[in-house]
């Protein structure tokens, strides 16, 4: 494992996001809003899509990003999913404001595991997904909890992408000794511990 492997993984993670069904589905949502003449919804969807795309362009070369920017990306991502499905089953982010804004964390990791959790949650009747962020210096702990579903599940739609994110954790730890951790199961569905860098 070396820097080239890490760079390749980042490139693949970037491609997995920008080239994925997510972007096309987001554009499809915008097209639908226009067809249905819901101008303000279409405008909102374009705004969110643009923010997501700009973030993707900005972070394509960076292994790390400030947590504030990463969490903003997650907010926009969830907003777009909410615009797409217009359902009540979307998670709230709890406590993320406790994390210092200038703390840097690896890019694309939280989004990958969150997307997997969202998809698993959607298929379970009456389940509820919460994402709680805890900060115990220097660790940022993102706890994704699906009620009644603590065990480890890769959703088939994003299995490859989730595994790519897992590989990235291993690479960051092996190449830079960063000490990130992923915990499947236990009390939550999935817990991602990111070692923040000042």
């Amino acid at each position, binding site marked *: 494992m070396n820097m080239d492997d890490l760079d390749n993984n980042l490139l693949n993670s970037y491609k997995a996001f920008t080239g994925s*069904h*997510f972007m*096309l*589905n987001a*554009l*499809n*949502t*915008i*097209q*639908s*809003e226009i*067809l*249905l003449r819901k101008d303000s919804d279409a405008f909102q969807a374009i705004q969110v899509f643009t923010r997501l795309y700009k973030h993707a362009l900005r972070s394509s070369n960076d292994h790390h990003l400030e947590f504030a920017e990463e969490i903003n990306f997650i907010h926009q991502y969830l907003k777009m999913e909410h*615009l*797409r*499905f*217009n359902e009540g089953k979307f998670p709230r982010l709890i406590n993320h404001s406790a994390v210092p804004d200038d703390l840097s964390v690896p890019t694309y990791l939280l989004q990958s595991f969150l997307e997997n959790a969202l998809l698993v949650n*959607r*298929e379970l009747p009456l389940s509820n997904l919460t994402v709680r962020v805890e900060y115990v210096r220097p660790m940022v702990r993102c706890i994704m909890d699906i009620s009644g579903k603590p065990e480890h599940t890769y959703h088939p*739609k994003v299995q490859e992408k989730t595994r790519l994110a897992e590989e990235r954790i291993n690479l960051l730890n092996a190449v830079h000794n960063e000490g990130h951790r992923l915990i499947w199961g236990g009390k939550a569905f999935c817990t991602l511990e990111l070692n923040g860098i000042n």
Partner: protein
Amino acid sequence: MLRAIIIDDEPKSREGLEAMLQDMIKDVVVAATADSVANGVRAIEKHQPDVVFLDIEMPRNDGFALFEAFNPVDFEVVFTTAHEQYALQAFRTTAIDYLLKPIDLDQLNQAVDKVREKRQKDRVNKNFEVFVNNLKNSNANHQIAISSSDGLIFLKVENIIYLRGDGAYTYFFLKSGERITTSKNLKEYEDLLSDYDFFRVHKSFLINLHEMKKYVRGEGGYVVMSNGDTVDVSKRRKENFMAALSKL
């Protein structure tokens, strides 16, 4: 008018495609929309659509599961998805087209045209099947078209007493006393009328077995037809002729 059903778990996607089909594509009516394969199956059973626009990645059952519910699939399927990687799998089914989201209006038009053509072709085939079945099942009311010098003449099979071949020409002898000449050889009519109790008793004669009055034995013998005409039975066809008579 094509009847369409949209199956997609995303409400916006369903509504958007419905608006495109209703407002921008000619002669398509969206009979129903469904948010899952299970609800889609119910909608198809109720509305009997011409075409189903089917998303692939949906919670619980993916779009391919729809094919397990119908055998044969008597509607066309157009896949609509944001996932290019399913194209090959999609075309292994009986799907007529595969549209990548966001849906391109030109491609949607082309897909609908394909559906229209296929349905038209299927209808012609079905009509032909009905026609052939009529041929087989209803001697009494069946008509055949024969070409004459000035067009087509439609004859009820039951009104034909016998046909006489003369080289490239065939003469029809009818109950009405008429005689019609056509420029096709007797063999062609033998094939056409073989399922209607017509029998080739001689190289020059094809007779309607229901219009025989009498068979007179002889080496081959001869038949007296209902209009009084006599028709020779050739020696080599006699045995098969007798077998045909025994089946009447």
